[in-house]
């Protein structure tokens, strides 16, 4: 599905990477531990997290991820947003919980990025 559709589905506010919204993604990974993301997530997935620091963006960059969804209305700092913008990563904020965000995306057929 397109990143734009994820934003619509989660009623999310897009804060960076608006020109990347038509990028197609196939899978997603939910986690607050970046070490686990590095260990278990596959390339180019969507990262759904409640953690707010620049390492979230750098972790996404290491895995060539195109999109980060911050849950529960957690607003990333301008530093996080500009780091994402500079690296063509879409950052969005949803008011939904991690459980509901993941559930809605799973329902659309998006795959688990933890499965090789």
């Amino acid at each position, binding site marked *: 599905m397109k990143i734009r559709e994820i934003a619509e589905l989660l009623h999310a506010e897009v804060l960076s990477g608006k020109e990347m919204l038509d990028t197609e993604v196939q899978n997603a990974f939910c986690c607050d531990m970046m*070490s*686990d993301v*590095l*260990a278990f997530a596959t390339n180019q997935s969507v990262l759904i997290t409640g953690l707010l*620091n*620049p390492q979230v963006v*750098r972790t996404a960059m*290491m895995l*060539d991820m195109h999109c980060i969804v911050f849950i529960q209305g957690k607003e990333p700092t301008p530093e996080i947003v500009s780091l994402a913008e500079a690296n063509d990563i879409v950052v969005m904020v949803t008011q939904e919980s991690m459980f509901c965000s993941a559930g809605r995306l799973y329902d659309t057929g998006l795959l688990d990025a933890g499965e090789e």
Partner: protein
Amino acid sequence: MAALNFHFDIDGEDFSSAGEASVEMKKKLRQLGFPSDVIRRCSIAMYEGEINMVIHANGGSADVAVYPDKIVIVLEDHGPGIPNVELAMQEGYSTATEQIHNMGFGAGMGLPNMKRYTESLEIETQVGVGTKLTMVVAV
């Protein structure tokens, strides 16, 4: 064939900048045209090492030697050293503080991840002196 060498100083004072060296290395490997899988493995291994150096050792240095058939990453710090390497290699074992956990690291996956994504990981460490990691990723 002579290697292309890149040197990075890793600032241990500021956690928010941790990972910048790995990002730079990743860009250089991409410019050099390496396959994405090789770049991904190098990036993750070096990023984990960089985070470890910032968390545990107040920074250090990274030297990356790029050959046509392999990439050698050497990470060196003058931190506290690793008292028990066997224990540190176990998934889930961590000495990181609560503060580090709150930053999303310290799950005890750093060294295991470095091993997982590289062909070889050599650890030279001495308590009170420092640690030197040598990782090789085959192209």
